[in-house]
């Protein structure tokens, strides 16, 4: 039942995000994050952290958003599941840029860019 509730929260969060209802999205993702922690599901916790980060960022809450993205990175290391890491580096750098800390932004963009695969080649 908690697992089910978690799935519902995540889905709602995404829908609110899509409809630009960011405050509601934050609420849902926060609930999902707590639930995921309590049931110990790190994969769902990561999804919730990612969604929460994205909603907070769009609300202009860059510091809080960054914390969520750092959480994503941490959980990726713990689970050995890499997805979302590249984007997390990019998003953290975006937040630093917004906050005017271009030095740190540049460092994180470098990490981000080094993880993008080169295109092209025959």
């Amino acid at each position, binding site marked *: 039942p908690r697992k089910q509730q978690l799935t519902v929260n995540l889905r709602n969060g995404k829908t609110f995000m899509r409809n630009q209802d960011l405050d509601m999205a934050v609420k849902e993702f926060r609930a999902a994050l707590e639930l995921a922690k309590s049931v110990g599901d790190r994969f769902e916790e990561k999804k919730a952290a990612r969604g929460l980060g994205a909603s907070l960022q769009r609300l202009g809450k860059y510091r809080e958003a960054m914390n969520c993205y750092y959480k994503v990175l941490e959980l990726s290391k713990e689970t050995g599941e890499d997805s979302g890491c*590249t984007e997390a580096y990019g998003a953290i750098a975006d937040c630093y840029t*917004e906050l005017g800390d271009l030095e740190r932004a540049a460092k994180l963009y470098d990490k981000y*860019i080094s993880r993008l*695969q080169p295109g092209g080649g025959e």
Partner: protein
Amino acid sequence: LETVPTIKKLRSYADRIRASELEKCLQKIGEDALTKKMRRSIEELSTGIVNKLLHGPLQHLRCDGSDSRTLDETLENMHALNRMFSLDT
């Protein structure tokens, strides 16, 4: 360092395109018709294309200007990208 805002803008420009095309695609197919795995693969398709296309330009915005030639080139790249993607507006 001057190129940092351009990196941010180019990223978000590309992501807007990606997200809106993805949305269109999912709507056409009808979300219910898709398994989780399909949906995920389609999402990865969209980020894969964007990330590979952005790799070159972003890398060329981050040549650390150790010698002035690369610094000049990096700035020229930035100006060209700003023009071509209308990132200044």
